[in-house]
């Protein structure tokens, strides 16, 4: 009797706290959340924090910090603080549209691959194909067709993330559907689709959460890189990438012009990376 009750008692004593929450409540997770939260908050409160229109040109070009312009102005006399804050908003809306879209598309393809061997083969080659255009080369190819702009940037980020989400989920599905509970569900009379969606999928999504945090930082990187190549969001709308690329020419005369967006970008990407690491450690236990 006592022998039988031991594993049961162990199961009862399982920590109630979610593993993701446990991962995030480490120093890595907290500092990551704080960095991203701070930057996001600044972006959200852009109209409150700075009254200036980010695209309004003024007479004082490349002016230093002053009462009217707390961070000074850029080469066209636009308020730098306002441009940085609105740039955060643009970047965040782009990556928060693109990353979920990429995740859903990747997951859908991975589930499709789980239905038959033929589908699996096609989907795998499809992932290989996208991956064989490393990073920005894919961006160049897509913007070659669609031209520069906001939506092409979203599409490039989403497309670049599809194979990463897809491969992770496919690997998880392959492992999980051989487990006893999946077999039990099949024996219990559940159809293939139900087993895949209701039983296998919820147990295979763990890696996707970590991948999501990584993808957000990659999104900031791709947006900036495309802006650098003149293929990103069209001016005058500010993005973090276009602010940095516009500041390069004035590095020696107005270093603040580069420093402000550089600091914000670094904080954002570092924050996402720390969150991804803490989630990864939490999931691994």
């Amino acid at each position, binding site marked *: 009797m006592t022998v039988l009750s031991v594993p049961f008692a162990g199961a009862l004593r399982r920590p109630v706290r979610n593993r993701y929450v446990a991962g995030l409540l480490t120093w890595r997770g907290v500092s990551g959340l704080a960095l991203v939260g701070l930057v996001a908050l600044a972006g959200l409160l852009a109209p409150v924090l700075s009254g200036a229109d980010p695209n309004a040109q003024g007479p004082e070009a490349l002016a230093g910090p002053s009462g009217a312009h707390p961070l000074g102005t850029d080469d066209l006399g636009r308020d730098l603080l306002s441009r940085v804050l609105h740039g955060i908003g643009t970047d965040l809306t782009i990556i928060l549209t693109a990353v979920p879209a990429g995740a859903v598309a990747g997951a859908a393809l991975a589930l499709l691959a789980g239905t038959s061997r033929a589908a699996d083969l096609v989907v795998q080659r499809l992932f290989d*194909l996208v991956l064989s255009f*490393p990073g920005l*080369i894919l961006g160049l190819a897509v913007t*070659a067709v669609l031209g520069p702009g906001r939506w092409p940037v979203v599409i490039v980020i989403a497309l670049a993330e599809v194979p990463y989400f897809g491969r992770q989920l496919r690997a998880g599905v392959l492992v999980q559907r051989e487990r006893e509970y999946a077999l039990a569900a099949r024996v219990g009379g559940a159809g293939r689709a139900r087993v895949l969606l209701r039983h296998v999928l919820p147990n295979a999504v763990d890696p996707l959460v970590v991948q999501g945090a990584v993808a957000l930082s990659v999104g900031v990187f791709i947006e900036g890189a495309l802006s650098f190549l003149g*293929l990103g969001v069209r001016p005058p709308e500010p993005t973090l990438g276009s602010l940095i690329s516009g500041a390069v020419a004035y590095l020696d005369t107005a270093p603040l012009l580069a420093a402000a967006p550089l600091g914000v970008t670094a904080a954002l990407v*570092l924050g996402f*990376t720390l969150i991804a690491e803490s989630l990864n450690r939490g999931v691994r236990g």
Partner: protein
Amino acid sequence: MRSFLLKRLPSGLVVLLAASFAVFLMLRLIPGDPATTLAGPDASPAAIAAIRARLGLDEPLAAQYLHWLGQVLTGDLGPSYAIGGQVSGLIGDGIAATAQLTLAALLLVVVLAVPVALLGASAGRRPWAGALRALTTGALAVPPFVTGVLLVGVFAVSLRLLPAGGYASLGDAPDLAVQYLALPALCLALPSAAILARYLQDGLERALAEDYVRTATALGVSRRRILWRHALPNALPSAVTVLGLQVGQLVAGAVVVERIFAWPGLGQLVEQGVQRRDYPVVQDLLLLVVAGYVTVQLLTDLAYSWLDPRVRAL
């Protein structure tokens, strides 16, 4: 070894063929006709038709695709539409510059990552182990365009030690070329070096936790010898796979780095081709990058099987 290669080759070729098809179709989807662009705003319909015929754009798509594939296979890529000159000449110049940059970066990746990983793995729980982790996280988290601008700001603008941008061929003026190479190569290498250091350190730590290491320690083998002779060979194969994947990232990253440092490589050529609607240049270049990527994957698998005899037996 040969059977291993034979097994890997077909899937690489499938990817290559699919990529050629994707690249070809993608460029045909571009709004706007290159013949109209080329002929200029005031050209007569007859002149545009003549240009279309000369470029082979009046043929059916399937015929155009096969014609292009034939050109690629024979190595005669024909003239570019807008940039001027033969495509193969343009690509050749670009490759020379980009190869210098990526090879220098690759060398830096290994030179930076291996000592950091060895140091980190031998640090155990000492305080500077955490500092090393923080360093690699930092290098990993900052995008190349951010490091690039920072490097220019510090070394070129403030300290005036190195040029902010430009290019010299290693063959003509080695001392100048090294100065021009230093900043872009470092900028390109940092994120990849951080990733490699991470993987190698994880591999080393896992190897150091194995039973054979305990046995070796019990037999009185020195820590250094265990690290170099026992842990490193076991951690190396997966690190080589990561390095192979990073080569693709280096080539892709080179596009941005070339832009920051005014480096006349493949990245600038693709960018020009895209912006000026030069079909032949863009499609040949994209295919070349994919081919390079597939080749590196193949070489990586080969290196893996050479380092890890267990894979060869499969």
